[in-house]
């Protein structure tokens, strides 16, 4: 049962990702991205990273994708015609992607298989404790990064201050 679910979500991930690749409609791509991200969240659950799965849903699906959809809407004339995104570099892109894929799979076989994957279930307490002790520095840096991103994004996308002054 677990295997079946896993492969279902794995295939769903890849299928929806491929859909993003082949579709021309940007909005369809964005919605397909939702499916991809949700099924990736499901894959996270199989690695006992329940918290991360929920985080993935909350931040990616509830945040980033909504932002992307906003971006799509704000950067197109809302005049009825569907938003089409063409492709470039088809040949070279395909070749390079396939090369990278082959390299990745080839190097994947070099990996030493992990014999038994006995995860300790990452309880929230455990995660929180580590976040405040072992990973305090990255945690603080991430907080700083978010603040900087917040300020930066609002300044970049916000009103043009100079034109306002003049």
């Amino acid at each position: 049962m677990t295997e079946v679910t896993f492969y279902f979500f794995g295939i769903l991930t890849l299928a929806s990702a491929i859909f993003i690749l082949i579709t021309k409609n940007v909005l369809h791509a964005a919605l397909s991205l939702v499916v991809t991200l949700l099924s990736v969240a499901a894959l996270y659950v199989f690695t006992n990273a329940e918290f991360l799965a929920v985080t993935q849903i909350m931040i990616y699906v509830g945040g980033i994708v909504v932002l992307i959809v906003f971006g799509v809407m704000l950067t197109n004339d809302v005049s009825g015609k569907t938003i089409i995104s063409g492709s470039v570099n088809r040949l070279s892109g395909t070749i390079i992607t396939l090369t990278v894929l082959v390299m990745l799979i080839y190097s994947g076989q070099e990996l030493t298989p992990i014999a038994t994957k006995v995860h300790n279930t990452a309880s929230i307490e455990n995660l929180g404790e580590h976040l405040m002790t072992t990973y305090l520095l990255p945690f603080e840096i991430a907080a700083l990064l978010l603040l900087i991103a917040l300020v930066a994004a609002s300044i970049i996308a916000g009103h043009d201050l100079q034109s306002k002054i003049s």
Partner: protein
Amino acid sequence: MALISIALVIFLIPLTAFAMNVIAPKSRARTASYISIILLLISTILSSILLLKIGSESAVTRMDWFTVGSYTFEVGVLLDFQGVLLLVIVNMVSLLVHIYSVLYMAKDPGYTRYFGFLSLFTFAMAGIILSDNLLMVFVFWELVGLSSYLLIGHWYSKDSAAKASKKAFIVNRIGDTGFVVALCIIWYQFGTFNLDEIQVLMESSQLQNGSWVSGLSALPAVWLSFMGIGLFLAAVGKSAQFPLQVWLPDAMEGPTPVSALIHAATMVAAGVFLMSRVVVLLDLTTLAIIATVGSITAFMGAVAALAQYDIKKVLAYSTISQLGYMLIGIGTGAYEAALFHLFTHAFFKAALFLAVGSVIHSLHALKQKHNLNIDAQDMRIMGGLKSNLPVTFYTYLIAAFSLMGLPLFSGFLSKDALLVASLNWSAAVGQLAYGVSLLAFATVTLTAFYMGRQLLLVFFGDFRSGFSVSEIQEGGWHFKVALIILCTLSIGFFWSFNPFDYMSSWLLNTLPAKLNSTPQFDLEVRDATNHSFVGVGSIALVMAGVLLAWLKFKPGKILTFAESDQLSFLERVSINNWYLDKFYERTILSFIRWLTLVLAQVERKVIDRLVNSFGWIGVIFSFVVGWLDKVFIDGLINFSAFFSSQVGGMTKSFQYGKVQSFIIFALVSLALIIFLIL
């Protein structure tokens, strides 16, 4: 805990006074000085309370100061009887000098500066006394040197004062090199500067097979002597011992109260105090050296005092001589006798200086009144002042008796203790060591002679400056208060209930009997062998000295003062302080001057030429390089710029801002690199 806070308050009060005087405006100078007097009064009272509380106990409080590598340096406060007693004396003398100075320095333009530096000096002195480790002692030691320098050069516009302060500073530095060397050896051997830890480590260390073994490491035994001599050298500098005593007479260029405080009572005593702190570290060789140097200094100082005409110089040489006595005490193992003499000397010598200051002040007033061209410090113009300066005279008399070592006065007790110790030591060590005792006893007579001479010249006979004595007026209550208190404390009764027997002194009985932990040193110095003999003998010697002085300078006798070229050989030796200055001038200074001249020649002839020729070579070389630069390198750069612009023109065609193309190029290159590596 209460003790330590009292000690810290005492420690910080002078610093507060210093800061206050420094920032006080000129218009509030007098108020500021009175506030410092009140502050010092408080700290005197507090230190007296501390003295009563501490008794014969000792207490150490310390905390970390800074860490270098794995070594942690500490700051701490050491409270023990001898230190607190000295603290009382420093504060008290400083207080009296402050009071005295209010009048003495009243018209001085540097009034606030003067009081500020007095307080700074008191602060530094308290630092030396309270520090529990040698590093802090060293720090405050230097601060004391600094404030002494500042005070000697108080009238810095006067050339002689500026020179004297420089001299004092430089001579002290010579001694301090010894201190630094000793500190290095101590750190290497013990790994600590804390006095109590050093004492414990020293007691547990041994001399075996010519090496000095302590808990931490072992050194050849000679380093123990080096360390002791280094510490002693520091004391030699600060306490004006042979051969570095030359700065002290010149230091009389400072205001007289400063001489009383610094160059009689406290700062010069710091050397002796340091010796008493580190007495555990001194081995037999060092002790012998200390005793010898002390006796030589005592004798030389006394001889130098014999023929001086400057009223303050007499006292300056006398101070040198008395400090020599104290070091005899240290050297002969009687550190407590040395401390005893330090304490008694502090009072009577301060009293003497202040009395002399009073005389100078009065004569100075006379000089200004009649616009005379006389030297207010020359004893040759004085005489018969006892009726017009009664308080000054009687206080001077008591202090002078104390200095001479007459019974019933404090000086007798301490000097007696020192003489007994030196005689015991000489007897224990052997024949040649009797020289030390001999010099010490000879000095007794000489002391009596020069003090008698000064007394007779200044206060008895006729006033020799051509004016009526009745025009001389004594200073105000400031002088009298300071003088009376100081001379009262010079009376023997304050120091011992039996003024004939130093053995019954409360001070000696409170001090720990024996501190020497030097291996092989087991001399019992405090036994009273020879006591009665020494006492009677020294009284006889004093009487002899006084008699000689009386015969030579008795009132009514017509005194003629020879010009300097008609003096006898002995007088010339005395008045020129054994020609030490000249000797140094001829030997060391002339050598250094010669060395500077030679080095200057070397500089000019060799190094300058070398530098110049280097410069020429450089100029020629740079011309060549400049030509090469213009032709070849510029050409190369121009060519490369041309080349790269051509290449850029070629590659521009596929670098036209398509982000994805960049990524493709990057990935292709990455793949190529990976394949090449694999």
